């Protein structure tokens, strides 16, 4: 057994957490703590940045430095933290609302700049905290409390968005696939440049209840059945693709990150100043 326990990264005194039975957020929180422990990063070397929403409450449970701010701005705070002290490991934990709906602009630009950050986006296809309204990832025709007869808008593919914007590392997994979840988190955190790990996560209370099933177990089965590896997905018929989603790594490249480029280009010193 590893001597560096994941418990060193959690504030268990604040448990039980606020999340509903069967919510995937707790599973991702656990995997996040294990990933940090296995990477051997000290809590003081890590800043966890969160926004607003169910997953946006996770800062209350982590024992790293934490910055919890306004809705959608997590990546903008994280950008400042990283450039304010580039030796820090900065990780933004966001939901689909934070990351690609209200904060969509910050998301594409953080990826484009290739800021050395890791974005862990929990995508549960709706706004859980405010009662199950649709977000920018809610699939077309899905039912939510603000699309009671079905959503007239199509949803974003978060990984495609990150890839198009220029992220260095792009991957998708689910809380059912916990081993890959932990490993992808580690890979993303280690990668220099902008990393995105999308975690398709059950919300049995709202999105699940209206579109899958209200039982936590049924939602985990749904993830198990719908998620297929990238290679298997590529060989599927278009019809089959509509019924599934791909998990695994989509992008893994080494474009220089913002700060490296910035220092290279701005190589000049102020004479006689401080």
């Amino acid at each position, binding site marked *: *057994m590893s001597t560096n326990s994941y418990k060193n990264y*959690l504030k*268990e005194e604040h*448990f*039980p*957490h606020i*999340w*509903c*039975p*069967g*919510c*995937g*957020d*707790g*599973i991702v*929180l*656990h*995997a996040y703590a*294990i990933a940090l422990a296995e990477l051997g990063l000290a809590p003081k070397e890590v800043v966890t940045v969160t926004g607003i929403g169910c997953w946006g409450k996770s800062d209350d449970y982590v024992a790293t430095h934490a910055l919890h701010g306004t809705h959608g701005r997590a990546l903008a705070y994280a950008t400042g933290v990283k450039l304010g002290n580039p030796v820090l490991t900065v990780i933004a934990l966001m939901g689909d609302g934070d990351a690609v709906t209200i904060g969509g602009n910050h998301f594409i630009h953080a990826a484009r700049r290739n800021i050395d950050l890791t974005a862990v986006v929990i995508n549960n296809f709706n706004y859980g905290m405010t009662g199950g309204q649709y977000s920018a990832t809610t699939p077309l025709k899905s039912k939510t409390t603000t699309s009671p007869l079905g959503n007239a808008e199509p949803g974003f593919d978060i990984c495609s968005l990150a890839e198009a914007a220029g992220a260095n590392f792009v991957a998708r997994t689910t*809380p*059912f696939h*916990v*081993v890959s979840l*932990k490993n992808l988190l580690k890979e993303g955190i280690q990668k220099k440049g902008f990393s995105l790990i999308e975690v398709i996560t059950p919300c*049995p209370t709202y999105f699940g209840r209206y579109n899958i099933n209200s*039982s*936590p*177990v049924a939602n*985990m089965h749904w993830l198990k059945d719908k998620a297929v590896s990238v290679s298997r997905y590529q060989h599927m018929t278009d019809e089959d693709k509509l019924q599934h989603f791909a998990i695994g790594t989509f992008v893994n490249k080494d474009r220089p990150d913002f700060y490296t480029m910035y220092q290279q280009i701005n190589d000049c010193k102020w004479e006689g100043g401080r």
Partner: protein
Amino acid sequence: MKAKEKIRISIDENLCKRCGICSEFCSEKVFLELDNGMPQVTVPENCIVCHLCDWRCPDLAITLEVIS
């Protein structure tokens, strides 16, 4: 698990929200779900220490300890 190792699986009742995921997905059927939804470890000797119940528990309520 090696033959002489013993496994202790504990479930923190204060944390468990009775979602049923551990008993549903345990490949070795170590858990039994009680009528009140609480999982109970019934056949710990079947455990292969895959840790999936622990890692998949949304409430971080399960602890697995290997005692040699």
